[in-house]
């Protein structure tokens, strides 16, 4: 393992600053033929909820110009099965970052508590879900709700808490500051942009859930902009993501202010892409005689 790429983010030791984004990488195991999981900074596993969930019905993905829409929903086996069956299998193979979703502030607290166990490197709060218990507003679009979720999760866990921001907001820095104040150890962004496709033959929305989340290359400029803005607004480290397909893309995020990056959609076109990005980053740094920290946030304005 190359020393140059080693890093540490809120106490999590990472062999490279390249992570796999939640929902696109399963529980990591599915990629072992293509990826040396230890070489990843971590795997943000598919979101976990208190109860098992089946997710959305109907068509769940569709390709869009340089991107895709998904409405997988929150399909997952539930926290219990995760803890008893999945975690024991994967915990020694990688940094397991558990992405969690809830219907209420209390859900996040309970999940945080249940997941405060050995083998979990950190928890990542997916706040792009509706507060079902309290009016249905998306936690991540409201600074108060985002802060409440964050402080509650913090209260119930000793693990680093990463808060994953939704890009579907007017002012991303407002949310970032709110979750930082509420105790977030790290901020990850961006989750997907809300989009829609209509089939012009059937006149129906392509996706079973009508709308879905846009990801992939198409969203990269929005993601870079938001990482840059958030980096100006907060002090906690940032894990940047959204449309990263190459080492060059990843470097853009580092320059914008990300301390690490995560790769999502690009894993589908090339399951080995995270390794290629890690190698590309290593070459970029080596050929310039730089360390990772020499490029983080170093965009010249």
């Amino acid at each position, binding site marked *: 393992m190359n020393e140059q790429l080693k890093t540490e983010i809120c106490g999590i030791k990472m062999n490279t600053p390249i992570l796999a984004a939640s*929902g*696109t*990488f*399963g*529980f990591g195991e*599915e*990629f072992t*033929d*293509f990826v040396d999981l230890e070489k990843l900074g971590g795997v943000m596993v*598919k979101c976990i909820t208190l109860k098992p969930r*089946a*997710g959305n019905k109907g*068509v*769940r*993905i*569709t*390709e*869009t110009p*340089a*991107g*895709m829409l*998904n409405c*997988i929903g929150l*399909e997952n086996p539930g926290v219990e099965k995760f803890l008893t069956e999945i975690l024991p299998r994967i915990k020694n193979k990688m940094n397991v970052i558990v992405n969690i979703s809830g219907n209420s502030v209390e859900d996040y607290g309970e999940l945080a508590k249940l997941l405060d166990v050995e083998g979990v490197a950190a928890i990542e709060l997916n706040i792009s879900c509706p507060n079902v218990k309290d009016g249905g507003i998306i936690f991540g679009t409201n600074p108060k709700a985002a802060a409440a979720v964050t402080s509650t999760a913090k209260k119930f866990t000793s693990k680093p808490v990463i808060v994953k921001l939704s890009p579907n907001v007017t002012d991303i820095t407002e949310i970032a500051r709110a979750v930082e104040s509420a105790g977030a150890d790290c901020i990850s962004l961006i989750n997907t942009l809300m989009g829609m496709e209509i089939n012009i033959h059937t006149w129906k929305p392509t996706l079973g859930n009508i709308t879905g989340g846009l990801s*992939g*290359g198409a969203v990269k400029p929005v993601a870079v902009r938001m990482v840059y803005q958030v980096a100006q607004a907060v002090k906690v480290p940032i894990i940047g993501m959204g449309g990263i397909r190459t080492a060059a893309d990843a470097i853009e995020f580092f320059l914008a202010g990300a301390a690490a990056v995560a790769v999502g*959609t690009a*894993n*589908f*076109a*090339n*399951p*080995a892409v995270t390794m290629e990005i890690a190698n590309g980053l290593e070459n970029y740094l080596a050929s310039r005689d730089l360390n990772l920290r020499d490029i983080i946030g170093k965009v010249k304005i």
Partner: protein
Amino acid sequence: MLKIFDTEIISNAEVSANIFKLEINAPELSQIAKAGQFVQVKISDEFTLRRPLGIASAKNGVVKIFYRVIGKGTEFLSTKETGEHLNILGALGNGFDTNINGRILLIGGGMGLAPLLSVAEKIDAVDVLIGGRNKGEVDFWIKEFRAEVDKIYITTDDGSLGSRGFVTSLLPEVLEYEDYAALYTCGPEIMMRGVYKIAVENNLPCYVSLERRMACGLGACLSCSIDTASGRKKVCKDGPIFDAREVFYE
């Protein structure tokens, strides 16, 4: 062991209106591929997602695929020429059981015949019931299956070849002629449900090959999840072949 293969196109020719036969040079893949498995084809750098296509044949280092042009991906694929390279992820999925005792009847509609051809190639005691819209859509399948099966039954929607109607119209008759150990079917879901119904009536095991939109093909993204009698399953990894009882249980 899954792999990404850099293969070379041997040929890519239209065998019927909008249906293409693609042959690629892929020695290792052709060795490991099991009947009924599929691959994820990278169309070009511009496509965010790969496209799942069934392995129709894997012999002598050559993998054959049949695909219908229905959208942007398959259209672009159809423009590729001999000698060009094709990046392929495979072999994916569980595949059909090819160690069954007794005669198998393959029942396929349209492009559903592709994975069934790979079964015919692997087992000896096998017949096929081919369904299609018209003569043009079944002619080339007949050619492909001829050397691999004993009997070929044919139905076309318009009666331009074989008996007029659907595979489900002819199937009960075929089952009277011969004793089968199992039915393997692939095609439109409505057809497969019909086949399953007849299998139940005849007390025959029935295996179906399902299709769902796929992103990863590796069991990671849950694009292709379905409900089964034994819980949530992923078509890409737990399938695409399922015991019909598991998936058509309602």
